[in-house]
């Protein structure tokens, strides 16, 4: 191989790779700016409006007592939790959809977050629990259901198709349990349960945030390390094996991390509707191709925080709705618009 030819070829490959990365970086930068803009608005808007400059001053520890209370105790926890939950759910959804090679296979649809809902609603309605106990139940529910799906789908290994089908069947069963609990409950309790099932950021406290943040500090790097073989897995198991990726191991590890991410996000804020489902497809369309974990996490953040901003200030008369209602309302139409405007063949 001539040195010059290798250099030229390497240059082209590097160029193509750079172009892809450049686009990804541009998208990521734009999303970060978007999230920061939403954050600035979230911290300054409200019944007690604070100009952004004053918000910044307060964040730097130089605000009035009242400003400090409003920004640091009321608005910042909510925003922070939104960012963390959005990242967790967005990344989880993208991992599921990539590993299982089916864009419908988000944790919303294959039963993981529904499992969390069943456990949480049981805790709320049957055991009469509240607060942290419900979150713990949701976390446990998600893990148990995910483990059950994985074990049921195991037969000399786990094929993506079988995992998805069994996950959907489990999701249907979980939905039936939810329906049973909701129809048998007192109507007010049912509404409380419904609010939890929609997902809400109200009542976010720093204790909770610390737990979520620490979990993400472990899970996100783990996901980024494990996702290196994801590109190979997308080409199919045989090809992946040919490229030296142990398909079973890689898939189990990634799914475990994705389940943990979904469980953490769901425990903290409820199964914020459709964030996990839409973040992946939106991120892929923006970046252009294949596994887009970081963009998906950023999309998740933008959807959750943006939806919460709208949820707080959208309706006249100060009526506030849970964030999970608005995530579906902004995420779904945006995805539809992307689907309607992208050409044939990209819809895979």
């Amino acid at each position, binding site marked *: 191989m001539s040195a010059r030819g290798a250099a030229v070829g390497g240059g082209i490959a590097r160029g193509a790779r750079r172009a892809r990365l450049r686009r990804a970086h541009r998208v990521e930068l734009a999303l970060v700016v978007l999230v920061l803009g939403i954050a600035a608005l979230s911290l300054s808007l409200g019944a007690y409006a604070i100009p952004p400059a004053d918000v910044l001053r307060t964040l730097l520890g130089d605000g009035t007592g009242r400003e400090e209370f409003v920004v640091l105790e009321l608005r910042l926890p909510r925003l922070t939790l939104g960012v963390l939950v959005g990242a967790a759910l967005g990344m989880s959804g993208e991992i599921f959809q990539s590993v299982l090679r089916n864009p*419908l296979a988000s944790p919303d649809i294959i039963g993981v977050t529904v499992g969390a809902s069943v456990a949480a609603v049981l805790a709320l309605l049957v055991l009469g629990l509240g607060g942290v106990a419900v979150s713990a139940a949701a976390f446990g529910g998600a893990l148990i259901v995910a483990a059950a799906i994985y074990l049921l789908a195991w037969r000399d290994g786990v094929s993506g198709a079988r995992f998805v089908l069994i996950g959907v069947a489990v999701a249907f069963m979980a939905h039936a349990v939810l329906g049973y609990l909701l*129809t048998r409950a007192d109507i007010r309790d049912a509404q409380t349960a419904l609010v939890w099932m929609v997902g809400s950021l109200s009542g976010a406290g720093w204790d909770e945030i610390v737990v979520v943040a620490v979990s993400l500090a472990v899970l996100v790097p783990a996901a980024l390390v494990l996702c290196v073989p994801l590109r190979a897995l997308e080409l199919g198991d045989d090809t992946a094996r040919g490229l030296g990726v142990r398909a079973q191991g890689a898939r189990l590890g990634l799914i475990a991390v994705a389940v943990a991410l979904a469980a953490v996000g769901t425990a903290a804020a409820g199964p914020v509707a459709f964030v996990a489902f839409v973040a992946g497809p939106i991120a892929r369309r923006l970046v252009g191709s294949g596994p887009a974990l970081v963009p998906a996490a950023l999309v998740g953040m933008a959807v959750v925080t943006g939806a919460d901003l709208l949820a707080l200030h959208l309706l006249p008369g100060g009526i506030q709705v849970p964030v999970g209602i608005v995530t579906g309302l902004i995420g779904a139409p945006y995805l539809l618009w992307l689907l*309607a405007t992208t050409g044939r063949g990209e819809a895979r």
Partner: protein
Amino acid sequence: MATIDTAAHAPAAAARRRPVHLLWGLAASGAALAVVVFLGLALGARSIPLDVVIDALVEPRAGDNDHLVVRELRLPRTVIGVAVGAALGLCGAILQGTTRNPIADPGLLGLNAGASLAVVGAITWLGIASPAGVVWFAFAGTAAAAVVVYGISALGGAGGEPMRLALVGAAVAAAATSLTTVVLLTDLETLERYRFWVVGSLAGRELDTLVALSPFLIAGVLISIGIGRALDAIALGDDLATGLGQRLDRARWSSAAAVILLCGTATAIAGPIAFVGLAAPHLARRITGPEHRWILAYSAVFGAIMLVAADVVGRIAGGPGEIEAGLVVAMFGGPVMIWVVRSARPGRR
């Protein structure tokens, strides 16, 4: 000539799945459905002996309480169960066939969410409450959602390309569900009614509703009968289907029409019953193999069996009240579905 022909035919003909077997299988399934229907008439809060059930059907006596229960209460809901279950089974088979996605069903593709939104709107703003009152709204909601899903997925110039259709359906479901939830959280009274409608049930449904909707149901069934070969062609991929002379746009639009008619009718009568549309075609395929005319026929019968059986179980198991068929079918059908998926021969690479 004749001898050569028979010699050449024999192995080929033997290798084709003999329709005779499938016909017998279908007859056996029909017999099973008949048994379930009789159980549906006999069992409930109070069991009625089989001979009394037959009497009630053949020569009813006016004052007999048992005859009244069979004819006025159990017969309507059982007949409705057969019709709705069959419609959902057909609908699921068509959706899975056109999208080539094994998890496609009316719920995932946004049709139930559309029906729910329309029903919630009718309850909240028009004050309509009875199951019979929301029928047309449920139907219209299903149809509107289907039109939106097919319309948007055709916008990209790809005319309902399978994966796009599935994604659009799920996104439409997301948007419609969000809107529904907004209303439910602000209006306690609507939630009170909606939560019983949304689980899907055969209780208190009237035969008149089924009669009123039967033209749609029949039209849907007729389209389904004609669509089998088109689905067989689509299963080979879009290019080959076109090469075989199948018009994809026509196949997709007629499948959309069938889905609207069947799912719309079923949802209008019984509420958004989950799971039957997903599971019935999977059970059917295990027996029939890949030919869609058989898949469709078996799916209809299996759907009917599943729903009527679920209704019976819900009546017996519910203790003082009863458990809605829509819940029972998923609780008991789920394990069956998991077994079917697990026992399938290891798929292609």
